[in-house]
């Protein structure tokens, strides 16, 4: 029964998200402009992108138990490969997307094949090192492709007209929402499929999986590649929403932020990860505005400085969550119904 009510809730949420660009309502405090203003839609689109990204990371980290510190690499792959094909090689959008899809399959396959030969924390360190190498590469601006520190902006004429301009933000929003929906569907299907159950078995007890006669390596690689591919798609949506790729998304700090998102929402739950990604991006965005508010600016420096650093607040929140609420925000909601008396479970 739970599955059906979750499905109904999912369809309802998807419907609300779909029609949002037609709703001219202002939610004071929560969003600055009306719901269908370009700024709000852009923020919501980014929230969806990070929701999808967090979910893709949760597949590998939460469901398979692989502590990868290189997930930013695949997100950045989506953004940069598409941007390079569009800007430098003047490919059409479909061509660029096909190339990105290919790279987004081959790259995690190759790196995963290498990294997964080791386990545990050394695995985490190697994935971190590969992501760092990619980050260095992007910053070095090889052959002038990546634009180095300045990033790579999508100039005019590189995207179809329907994806350009403030008036078309709704289209970008739908792309982000669509990718999130697709990621949710694929993620749900994957973790409920037989291989997905093996992932969770590997997370719980890898030796037992071996004892049962299965080869964990192939399953882990499948999880790694699927997760990398979904992350790359989120990277493409990010590229559209931001109008360019920037080197911040390649850094190791970005992967750490991703980890924060997933833990924020709840490790090993699909909707928890999505929630974590959305909440994180929303807070990160809004906290900057809170810090510019006159109330905060009038505080003495000892209070003002920490409050005007979103990463400080999120980092502290993260520590508190890890210490006191290991199940994440999703855990709160999971706990609630059981506390209500007289409810049949």
């Amino acid at each position, binding site marked *: 029964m739970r599955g059906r009510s979750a499905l109904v809730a999912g369809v309802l949420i998807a419907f609300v998200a779909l029609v949002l660009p037609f709703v001219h309502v202002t939610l004071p405090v929560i969003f600055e402009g009306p719901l269908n203003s370009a700024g709000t839609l852009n923020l919501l689109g980014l929230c969806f992108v990070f929701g999808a990204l967090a979910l893709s990371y949760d597949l590998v980290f939460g469901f398979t138990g692989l502590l990868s510190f290189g997930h930013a690499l695949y997100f950045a792959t989506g953004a940069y490969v598409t941007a390079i094909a569009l800007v430098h090689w003047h490919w059409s959008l479909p061509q660029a997307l096909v190339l990105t899809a290919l790279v987004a399959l081959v790259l995690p396959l190759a790196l995963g094949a290498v990294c997964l030969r080791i386990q545990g924390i050394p695995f985490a360190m190697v994935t971190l090192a590969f992501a*760092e190498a990619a980050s260095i590469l992007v910053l*070095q601006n090889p052959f002038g492709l990546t634009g180095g520190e300045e990033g790579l902006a999508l100039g005019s004429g590189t995207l179809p007209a329907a994806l350009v301009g403030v008036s078309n933000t709704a289209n970008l929003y739908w792309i982000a929402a669509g990718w999130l929906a697709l990621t949710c569907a694929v993620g749900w299907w994957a973790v409920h499929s037989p291989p997905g159950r093996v992932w969770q078995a590997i997370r719980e007890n890898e030796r037992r999986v071996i004892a049962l006669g299965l080869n964990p390596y192939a399953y882990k690689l499948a999880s790694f590649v699927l997760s990398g591919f979904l992350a790359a798609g989120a990277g493409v949506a990010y590229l559209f929403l931001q109008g360019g790729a920037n080197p911040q998304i390649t850094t190791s700090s970005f992967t750490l932020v991703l980890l924060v998102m997933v833990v924020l929402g709840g490790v090993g739950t699909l909707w928890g990860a999505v929630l974590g990604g959305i909440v994180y991006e929303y807070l990160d965005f809004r906290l900057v505005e809170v810090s510019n508010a006159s109330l905060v600016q009038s505080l003495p420096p000892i209070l003002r400085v920490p409050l005007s650093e979103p990463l400080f607040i999120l980092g502290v929140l993260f520590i508190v969550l890890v210490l006191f609420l290991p199940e994440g925000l999703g855990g709160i909601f999971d706990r609630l119904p059981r506390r209500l008396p007289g409810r049949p479970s």
Partner: protein
Amino acid sequence: MSTLVLLLITGLGLGALYFLVAAGLSLIWGLMRVLNFAHGAFFTVAGYAGFFTSAALSGTSPWLQWLAGLVVATLTGGLFAALTEIGLIQPLYRRPVGQVLVTVGLALATLALVEGTFGSDPRQVALPAWLMATSNVLGAAIPNTRFAVLLIALLVLAGLLFFLRRTRYGLIIRAGVENRAMVSALGIDVQRAFTLVFTIGGLAAGLAGFLGATYYGTIDPSRGTSMLISAFIVVVIGGLGSITGSAIAAVIVGLLQQFLNFYAAAGVGDFAVVLLLAAVLLLRPGGLMGGSSS
């Protein structure tokens, strides 16, 4: 020839910095199985503490300023690490992934706080005249800071090896790296050894924080992160838990970076180090000196 000597000694100096950060990481990992992402934060915070101490004493003897900065940075690193271990790591002894996550949070929060408080621009560090000068070695003008960093790192290496091999606590730590369950089964308080190892790691990272500022001549909030990643690479190449392995790997990584960044192109050295890491892990997953604790 002179370029070669300059690159060699500068690379060794860089390796010395990596070693100071990596030694603590390696011991912490070896004994506690904690991957400490906050180590870069120890480095940065201690570096700033040393910088401000040194700045507060301006007007006194430059050597006194520098030494005071060095001592305060080292102690700050140790104190920060001890507090981290007691406050954040101890409550999570039964949750290894939680321990990693909590250090990630601490690293993010601390970095943001340092950047917010002191700004992200590099600041010039006041150094004694000798440290700002260069010495002539085989026709190459070598900045004296390289020698200072190298000498101190060698002393730390010797001190750590003596501590691990010749003292009772060193014995406990080595035994703990070998087999933690057995050590606690023998009735030894491993938790105290945990706090001790974390503090030692923090002291070394703090020392490295100020020495890093000396080596580069400036201090900024972001260097701790890149140091941390280099140190991770050093630790894995050297073998998790091995101090000697970390020392050897630090030298290899430092030299490789310097030479390739100069002779090939900027960035190639950093890239090569990562490839070396991948190669080592595939050929010798335990690292160069994996399995031994000193």
